[in-house]
C-alpha cells in the first residue's frame, strides 16, 4: 500500500521490541465479540491511483460544472474568478499540512496570515475586530445570535424575512434551545418594519443585506431603533463582494457582522467548505466565539503572533466556553486573504463595480422578456424576477438548454405560494455579454 511505509520485516522487529506475538495482541482490550473480520466489511480492496482517479473522474463527469455554460446561480454561493496564484499558494505543504497553531514558535506563518485576515475582515465590514474564521456564513449567523443572547441576557431573536432560509433554519436549530427565534414575514422586494417587532425580551435583530432576493437594505434606521432599546443589530452578508460598492454594516450601526466569505478565494464546491466571517465591536471580544490571533513579542523582543483569549474556548473552559468550535476554516481563510491581498482596495472596488454593472445589464435585458418583471428595486449583483409560470419548471427547462439560470425561490421557501414564480438570478465578473444574450434568448423561448 503506497501510503504505508512499514514493511513486513519492520512490523516483525517492532513487535519483537514490544514483546507482543502479533498485532492482534495489541488489540487485546477489544471485546472479542466486537472484532469484525475483513470479510465483515462489504467494501472493495486497495486500489492504485489510476483506478481511483478513473472512478472519481467518471463520477465528476455526471455533474454540470458552472464553467460549462452560461451560469447565473447565487442565493448564498457565488461563482467568481479566483486568481491562479491563490490555489497554488494554499497548497504549499507548510499551509496545507499543518495543524491549528498551538505551538506559536513554529506556526508564525499561519498566525501572521490569520492576523492579516482578521484585520482585512474588520476593515471590509467596518467593524473594530474580527475572529480567525468560523465554518461558514450560516453557522456564523447562529453564533452571532447566541452571542447576542449572552451579551444582552435576553432570549428573543427577530429574523428578517429576507434572511436566507437556510441561515434562518440554522439559527433556529440552536438559538431556540437558549431562547426564542421569531421570523418576520417574507416580503420579497419590499422594506420591512422590524423595529415594530422589538419587545423587552428582544436580544437582537438579524438583517441580511443584500437579502436573499438580492435587495439592499438601509440598516441605519433599524440599528437606531434597536439601540434605543438595548437590542443588538446583527448584519448578515452572503455576498462579501458587495462591500466593495455599498456601505459596510459597521458604518450603518451593526453590532455584529456574520458573513460568508466564499466569494473571495473559494470555489463553489457544492456548498462547502466555505469560510465564515465574524466581526464585532471591541467591547464584546470576551464574548466572541472562535479563535483569535493577537500580536505580542518573543523573549528577544521580536514581534510575533499567538492564539489569544483562549479562556473563552472549549479546550480551556469546557462547558463554560463561548462556543464549542475547534477546527474552523483555516485554509479557506488563507485563500480569502491571499485573493484579497491581490485585489487590494483598487481591485476589490473595481470587482464590485463590474459585478453590479453586469447584474444591471442582465436585469435590464431579462425584464424586457414578455411576462417577466424585476421585483427588487435595488440590488448589488443579484436580483429577483417574477415569471409568468413556476420558476422551478423554468429553471429545469433552461438547464435542458445548457443554461443554469438561477435559483427558484420555491427551492428555499417551498411552503410560500408567493415564492412559486420568483427566480433569483446572480451575475458576476465571470459572465460575458454572450452569456446575457443566450440567457435572454433561452428565457424567451421557455416562456413562449
Amino acid at each position, binding site marked *: *500500500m*503506497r*501510503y*504505508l511505509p*512499514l514493511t513486513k520485516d519492520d512490523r516483525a522487529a*517492532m513487535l519483537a521490541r*514490544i514483546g507482543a506475538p502479533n498485532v492482534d495482541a*495489541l488489540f487485546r482490550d477489544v471485546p472479542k465479540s*466486537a472484532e*469484525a473480520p475483513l470479510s465483515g466489511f462489504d467494501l*472493495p*480492496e*486497495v*486500489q492504485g491511483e489510476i483506478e*481511483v482517479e478513473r472512478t472519481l*473522474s467518471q*463520477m465528476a463527469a*455526471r*455533474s*454540470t460544472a458552472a464553467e460549462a455554460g452560461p451560469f447565473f446561480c447565487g442565493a448564498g454561493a457565488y461563482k467568481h474568478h479566483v486568481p491562479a496564484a491563490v490555489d497554488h499558494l494554499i497548497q504549499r505543504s*507548510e*499551509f496545507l499540512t499543518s495543524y*491549528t497553531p498551538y*505551538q506559536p514558535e513554529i506556526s*508564525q506563518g499561519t498566525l*501572521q496570515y490569520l*492576523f492579516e485576515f482578521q484585520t*482585512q475582515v*474588520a476593515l471590509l465590514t467596518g467593524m473594530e475586530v474580527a475572529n480567525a474564521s468560523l*465554518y461558514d456564513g450560516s453557522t456564523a449567523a447562529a453564533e452571532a445570535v447566541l452571542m447576542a443572547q449572552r451579551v444582552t441576557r435576553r432570549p428573543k431573536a427577530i429574523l428578517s424575512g429576507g434572511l436566507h432560509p437556510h441561515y434562518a*433554519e*440554522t439559527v433556529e436549530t440552536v438559538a431556540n434551545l437558549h431562547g426564542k427565534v421569531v421570523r418576520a414575514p417574507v416580503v420579497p422586494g419590499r422594506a420591512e418594519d422590524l423595529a415594530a417587532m422589538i419587545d423587552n425580551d428582544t436580544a437582537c435583530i438579524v438583517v441580511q443585506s443584500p437579502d436573499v432576493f438580492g435587495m*439592499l437594505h438601509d440598516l441605519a434606521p433599524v440599528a437606531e431603533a434597536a439601540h434605543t432599546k438595548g437590542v443588538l443589530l446583527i448584519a448578515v452578508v452572503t455576498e462579501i463582494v458587495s462591500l*466593495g460598492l455599498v*456601505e459596510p454594516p459597521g458604518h450603518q450601526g451593526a453590532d455584529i457582522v456574520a458573513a460568508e466569505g466564499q466569494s473571495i478565494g473559494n470555489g*463553489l464546491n*457544492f*456548498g*462547502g467548505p466555505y469560510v465564515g466571517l465574524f466581526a464585532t465591536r471591541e467591547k464584546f471580544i470576551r464574548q466572541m466565539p472562535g*479563535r483569535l490571533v*493577537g500580536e*505580542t513579542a*518573543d*523573549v528577544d523582543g521580536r514581534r510575533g*503572533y499567538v492564539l489569544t483569549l483562549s479562556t473563552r474556548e472549549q*479546550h480551556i473552559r469546557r462547558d463554560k466556553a463561548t*462556543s*464549542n468550535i475547534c*477546527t*474552523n476554516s*483555516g485554509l479557506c481563510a488563507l485563500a480569502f486573504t491571499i485573493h*484579497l*491581498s491581490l485585489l487590494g*482596495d*483598487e*481591485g476589490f*472596488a473595481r470587482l464590485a463595480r*463590474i459585478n453590479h454593472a453586469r447584474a444591471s445589464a442582465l436585469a435590464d435585458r431579462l425584464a424586457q422578456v414578455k411576462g417577466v418583471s424585476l421585483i427588487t428595486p435595488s440590488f448589488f449583483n443579484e436580483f429577483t424576477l417574477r415569471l409568468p409560470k413556476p420558476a422551478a419548471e423554468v429553471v429545469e427547462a433552461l*438547464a435542458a438548454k445548457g443554461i443554469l439560470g438561477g435559483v427558484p425561490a420555491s427551492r*428555499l421557501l417551498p411552503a410560500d405560494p408567493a415564492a412559486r414564480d420568483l427566480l433569483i438570478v446572480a451575475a458576476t465578473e465571470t459572465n460575458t455579454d454572450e452569456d446575457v444574450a443566450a440567457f435572454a434568448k433561452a428565457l424567451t423561448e421557455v416562456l413562449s
Partner: protein
Amino acid sequence: MSLPTISGDRGLDHEEKLIFELGRAGVTGVDLSDVKVSDARLSGLRRRGTIGLPGLSEPEAVRHYVRLSRMNYAIDAGLYPLGSCTMKHNPRLNEKLARLPGFADVHPLAPQSTVQGALALIAELMRWLTTLTGMPAVAMSPKAGAHGELCGILTIRAAIEARGEKRTRVLVPESAHGTNPASATFAGFTVDEVKAPPEGRVDLESLRGKLGPDVAAFMLTNPNTCGLFERDVLEIAAMVHKCGAYFYADGANFNAIAGRVRPGDLGVDAMHINLHKTFSTPHGGGGPGAGPVVLSARLAPFAPLPLLVHDEKGFRLIENRADVPEGAKPFGRMCAFHGQMGMFVRALAYMLSHGRDGIRQASEDAVLSANYVLASLKDVMSAPFEGPCMHEALFDEHFLHGTGVTTLDFAKVMIDEGYHPMTVYFPLVVHGAMLIEPTESESKESLDRFIHVLRTMALEAKAGKKERFEGAPRLAPRRRLDETAASRKPVLRWKAPDLPKAAE
C-alpha cells in the same frame, strides 16, 4: 547562531512584514477592466471613502505567502506527533480529485438533475461510513468534529422529546476533549463530569452512580484520550441504555480501530467521524474539516436536513421539512447547503485508495507504531498506564520530577531538535501529560530516530542539563512568545501608526 546580519534575515530564514506594511494604495495583482456604475439601484447606500485594504502585485503576493509558509512546521516536512490530532500523510491524489470541476465547480442549489455526480459521490461516501461503522444511517452536513458532536447530541435531544420525556443531564468523563462538554452545553444540556479513576478507563461504579432517569446521554471517546481501549464498553453501553439514555461516541480516535471494530457492534447510538483525522483530509492550519455523524436505527429518523434519497429518477436531496419521507422527523438544520463536499471527495479518494484491507492495515500500523514508541521510551520516560496502548502513547511528567524541567520545556526542546512537540497537558487527568501519536505514516527509520532523540533528551534532563531546556526553543523562527501580554491587552488587528513618519 546569533550572528547579526545587516538585513535581519539569516540564510533561508526571512523576516516578513505584514501586508499592510508591504502593500500600497492603487496597487493590484488582478487586472480587471474598470466600469462606471450609476447610483440608480444602490438605494443611496453607495460606499463613501476607501476601505484601506493593501494591494500587492502578484510577485509580491507570492513572495509574501511563500515566506510566511516557511515559518510553519508541517507533516510534509517532519514527524508531527500531536496526540489526538492524527497528523498523518495527506495524499496529493486527493487534492487533485477534489479540484475536478464536476465536484469543485458545482453550485449547491443548481438543479438536481445537473448534479447527479456530486450526489453519487456523497452517497458512496455514506456507504463507506455506514459499512465501516456498522451503523444504519449517517448525517453528512456537520462541518467539523465539534459540529458533528452538536449534531449527534441534538439528534438525541429530538429522540428524547419524541418519547415525551425530559432529560437534562449529559455525562462526560473528565478525560474527554473540551468540545464534548461544550457541545452538550451548546445543545442546552447540563454537563456532569464522571471522575477518572487511576486506571485511565471509565469506572463502572462511578458511572452507575451518575446514571438516572434525567440522563440524556453518556459521551465517550473510544479509544479514549489516554490512548486506551475502553474494555468495558459493552457493559457501559448496556448500563446507559438500561436507564433510557443514549450512548454517544466521540469518533476522534476512530483511526485506531477502523477496519477492525465497528462502533455499531459496541452499542453506540451516535458517533461523529473527523474526516480530517481518520480519513486524512488536510488539517490546513486549523480547518476546514468535516464531521459526519453515524446514527443507530433509533436515532436515524431524527437526522437533520438535508436528506439524500435514491429513487427511479436518481439521487435527490430533500431540503425541506415539507418533503421528508414518512417516518422522518428531522430536528432542524446544521448549516446552509449540504456539508463539506470538498472534504468528502478527499475522504472517499482516501478510502478507495486504501480499500478495506488498507484501512485495517493503517489502523494496525498506527497502533503498532504507538506501542513501539511506548515500549522504546517507557524506561526513561514515565507512562502512567500499562500497555498495550492504541494509536497514541501517553507519558506524564513523573520522570522529570526533581530535574527543574517541565513538560512544556521538554516539548519546546523538541522544536530545536526539528520536531513538532507532542500534545502537552492533555488529557487533563494526567499530570504534565505528553500524548504522542506517531500515526501509520512514519517509517521505522523515522520512528527510531525520533525515539533516539527523545531518549537522549530524557537522559539529559535527568543528568541535570536543564540549561538547554530553559528558554527553548532557540532555533525556531521565534522564541517563546509572551502570551500573558497578548491576552492582557489584546491587539487583534493591525492599525495604521498614529503619527506620520518624519521625513528622512
